[in-house]
């Protein structure tokens, strides 16, 4: 046994961006652990901080963004303290990332083979023919037909689904422990999405890496993930196993999210939307971030940021409503 508890452990991560009108706290105290071979889903709407969390781990934030505090332990070592040189050997070899748009994340002036080889040469001692063989092996592994021909092609010659396969091949070429997938199928059609999800599940079984799946699509989350983190306004509002989150949601935001998608037996019923609009990160409410849109909000929700409350051993939620009775008893009056 190694001397670390979790493969990746993010503790109280705070990431913010400086813009003209002030400072935006995109990630505000996010913590989670990831163990080897697990699939963790991070779900939330645009602006919830899910992608910034992923970029913080890789330290690929935009110039005006930085990690303000918190630790990111990879195999027990705090990588937020690492310098750029250490980070560049970390990226790709320890943790890899694939992005939403496979067209803009591939370099248009180099061939596919060239780009996969680049990663291999950077992180392993394979060179020349050996690196080429590895690149071919990776393309075959991700199920691209005629891999020899593809090696010599440019990204624009490939379809969206194939480009995403190339991205995956590149990301996994050095056998990282963790693959971060930032909305990997959002730009793809459903039948191609099904192919890519299937491929990721397959490769995960074969190579045994852990996956962090960042997406807004609850369907993708349900298919892929063991554990789920729901984010809203830069904070984690609920975390738990997939079954707990989908069948026993205990945060008003998660409940609202699940109610607002047409599904199964409720297919023809009227949808129950979440009222209001997503929060403005420049003007965060004092208490719970979801409070202005929440039907069940109480006085305390306006004032205090909810703590994480254990629902059961597989489930935590940051919502005062879970201890509503205690709070109301303490206030000594009814809810207003």
């Amino acid at each position, binding site marked *: 046994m190694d001397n670390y508890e979790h493969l990746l452990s993010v503790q109280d991560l705070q990431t913010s961006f400086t813009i003209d009108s002030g400072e935006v706290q995109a990630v505000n105290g996010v913590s989670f652990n990831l163990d080897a071979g697990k699939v963790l889903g991070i779900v939330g709407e645009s602006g919830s901080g899910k992608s910034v969390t992923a970029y913080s781990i890789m330290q690929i934030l935009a110039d005006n963004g930085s990690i303000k505090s918190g630790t990111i332990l990879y195999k027990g070592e705090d990588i937020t303290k690492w310098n750029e040189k250490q980070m560049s050997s970390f990226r790709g070899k320890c943790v890899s990332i694939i992005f939403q748009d496979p067209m803009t994340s591939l370099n248009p002036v180099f061939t596919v083979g060239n780009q996969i080889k680049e990663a291999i040469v950077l992180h392993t001692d394979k060179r020349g023919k050996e690196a080429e063989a590895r690149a071919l092996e990776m393309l075959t592994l991700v199920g691209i037909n005629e891999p020899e021909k593809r090696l010599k092609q440019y990204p624009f010659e490939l379809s969206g689904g194939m480009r995403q396969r190339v991205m995956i091949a590149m990301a996994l070429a050095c056998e990282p422990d963790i693959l971060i997938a930032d909305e990997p199928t959002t730009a793809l059609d459903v*039948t191609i999405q*099904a192919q890519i999800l299937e491929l990721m599940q397959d490769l995960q079984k074969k190579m045994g890496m852990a996956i962090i799946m960042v997406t807004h699509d609850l*369907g993708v989350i349900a298919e892929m993930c063991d554990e789920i983190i729901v984010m809203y306004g830069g904070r984690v509002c609920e975390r738990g196993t997939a079954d707990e989150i989908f069948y026993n949601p205990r945060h008003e935001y998660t409940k609202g*999210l699940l109610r607002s998608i047409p*599904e199964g037996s409720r297919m*023809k019923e009227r949808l129950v939307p979440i009222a209001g*609009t997503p929060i403005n990160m420049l003007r965060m409410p004092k208490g719970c971030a979801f409070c202005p849109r929440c039907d069940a909000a109480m006085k305390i929700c306006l004032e205090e940021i909810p703590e994480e409350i254990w629902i059961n051993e597989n489930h935590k939620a940051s919502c005062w409503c879970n201890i509503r009775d205690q709070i109301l008893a303490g206030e000594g009056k009814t809810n207003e």
Partner: protein
Amino acid sequence: MSDNILEVEHLKQYFPIRTGFFETKPLKAVDDVSFSIKPGETLGLVGESGCGKTTVGRSIIRIYKPTDGKVTFDGEEITDKNILKIRRKMQMVFQDPYSSLNPRMTVEDIIGEPLDVHKMYKTRAERREKVLSLMETVGLKPDHASRYAHEFSGGQRQRIGIARALAVDPKFIICDEPVSALDVSIQAQVINMFEDLQKELGVAYLFIAHDLLVVQHISNRIAVMYLGHMVELADANELMDNPVHPYTESLLSAVPIPDPKIARAKQRIVLEGDVPSPLNMPTGCPFRTRCRYATEECAARCPELTDRGNGHLVACLNK
């Protein structure tokens, strides 16, 4: 006269693509598509990118001039001459609420523009009154009228686009992916609004989208397109429960279901390969290159939509 508000017969939309210095080749974006919509009905149109679903919408309202085929609206054939009059009763809502609103116009002018075009008011005061009542219908506040589009969120912008479409009091609206750019929680608000408007005003929709769960929720009937062809058309629940065409079958099985237990138990039919290029279409049935039931006959001739009972139309030789 038939009781359909819209009838599309053998609609074809080809675009010339330059393949050489002197050569052009037709890209068959829509190839022989026929369907009809009843007043107050919602027809969902689904398919993957490049299947021609958006082109169908645009050809109906003549953003593109159709190559061939006949579109009849309210008993009148649409031609270049009467299109302005037709657009008084037929409107469109676009996918991207960012690029479909003029950034230099106030909300009042955006919503009022169709009224200007069709000369639907006598005094400025009447115009303003109409705009304000439209804004109320779609849930915008009166003080939003003097603001510009960039001051609004995606969901609110889509409401502006819908108010603009409603300005001329249309009987039929083409909705081209109206909710795909919105967040899930906002999506539900806009979908509910579409349903409320239909109940109140009796307007019919052609609802073009790629999200099958949303389409099933809102539609009475659903049509599925693949590579410019319509492959299946049926009642919404019937299509979802009993898909017949192999493409519909695999499309439905590919939809990720937001329910972990169902998702784990589900047998996905994963299609091999990619959609062929519309410039280089397979002979016969367009789907045969990816179809697991394909036979030699499929390469020889293109199947037509045939009724399999209760108005369930399928274009397949083997199923």
